[in-house]
């Protein structure tokens, strides 16, 4: 796919003294392929491959991602569904891999979720940081909810 130059909007990537902040982005799921119940809410044991686009504030496509998410357990104490999440992120400046554990219930209620992220190529190569991800309303989500994306990387 072709992606527009994030520098065009001027507010997507900020260089700092010790790293890079990528923000003011949203992500939308284009395709969801799953095994198990096929429900977007997921059930224990379900797995899915998720294809997403990343947009800047002007709705230009500035990147794309592919994620694998697997529902691995349910918390005894609150019944929340816990999923393991790995995502490859392709932005104009390079690629990153994001990995973490996602509480699907808190995510669906709009809590900020955080994942470890590592730069794997381009200007992000070797950088480490955190990816923050928050589902935008309405809650519970409908099919086309976007999430906000912020990636903070350190050298």
């Amino acid at each position, binding site marked *: 796919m072709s992606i527009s130059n994030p520098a065009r909007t001027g507010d997507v990537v900020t260089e700092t003294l010790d790293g890079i902040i990528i923000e003011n982005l949203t992500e939308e799921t284009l395709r969801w392929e799953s095994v198990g119940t096929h429900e977007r809410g997921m059930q224990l044991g379900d797995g899915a491959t998720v294809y997403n686009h990343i947009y800047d504030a002007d709705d230009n496509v500035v990147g794309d991602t592919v994620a694998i998410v697997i529902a691995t*357990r349910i*918390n*005894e*104490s*609150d019944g*929340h569904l*816990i999923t393991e999440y790995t995502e490859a992120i392709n932005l104009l400046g390079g690629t990153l891999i994001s*990995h*973490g*554990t*996602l*509480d699907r219930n808190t995510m669906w209620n709009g809590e900020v*979720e*955080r*994942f*470890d992220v590592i730069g794997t190529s381009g200007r992000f190569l070797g950088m*480490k940081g*955190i990816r923050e991800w928050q589902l935008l309303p309405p809650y519970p989500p409908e099919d086309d909810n976007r999430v906000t994306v912020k990636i903070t990387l350190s050298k």
Partner: protein
Amino acid sequence: MSYPDIFIHSVGTALPGPAIDNQTLAKKFDTPSFTEEWIDTFVGTRQRHFAVDLDTGEVRYTLADLGVLAAQRALRAATLRGGDVDLVVMATSSPDDLMPATVNLIADRLGIDRVPTFQLQSGCTGAVQALDVAHHMLRCGRYSRALILGADSCAKHLDLSIDITTLAPEERINGMLFGDGAGALVLSTTPSPGAVAIRHVFVQLVGLNRPPGQIVKWLGLADRSAGGPVITEDYKAIEESVPVLAAEALGEMLETLGWQDTEIDYLLPPQLSGRMTARIIERLGVGSAKEISCVADTGNTGNALPFFQLERALPRMVAGDRALAIAIESSKWIKAGFVLEKV
């Protein structure tokens, strides 16, 4: 001398189902003074689970049953089997029997043998004490992988044949506060993806010249008719002292590590009841950290509480995140806690 880091690989928990909400409990105990609204307001615990069937009085789960289930879940999450651990430490205030120790019955059912096992008799700080013992034993280099358990059950204290209106108010309230449950951790001397490092474990007895805040009697053949309540709690002393001791524990752990409270991302406070935890949080004043509590959903499960908190905290942590847990035991007054950092 430097010691190796010790890592938490996984957590597993178990609750005997189903959840008993306040409406069900108020109906069961059918006393005008303990309405659903009263429990919600003054206890702040929404639900709990009991190993005893409230309708029949049948004990459906022993403490060993709950411990085995929690341990199996922790081991499975770490892709291990019972035979892969070389150390087991358990804390409980309510073992199934005085002998054999419940930890050894659990070990037997998990296929664990020919390794050292320990059972600590303790109240709300027992899980931290078990963690402390295992942490030290792993750091000494003699062991490589430990299973830690914390579990408690009210089964011996829930006599459904008793007319609750004949009990003293402090005895009645125990039925609202407590619940049954178990938790387990797998610790290792080697890191794994997603593991968190244990940065500090703190346990300190502060009961000198201080009367116990909680007493649970052990009755045998000779004194079974001694009379008086089996469990007594000094709720006034607990309400006054626990927030103070929690603040002390927080300060002492931060001082040892040379950290500021603003460097803590997740705070796991003591879990006496929903209402008490709110008071403690207010006293601690660590507004920058996200509170991880479970007592409103699980009831006070004693030695299992930190595991339920970890079940919620660990998935949220990313590299560099720090979590600090505090537990206070009011029996003979112990303050305790631990600090974790995701690496």
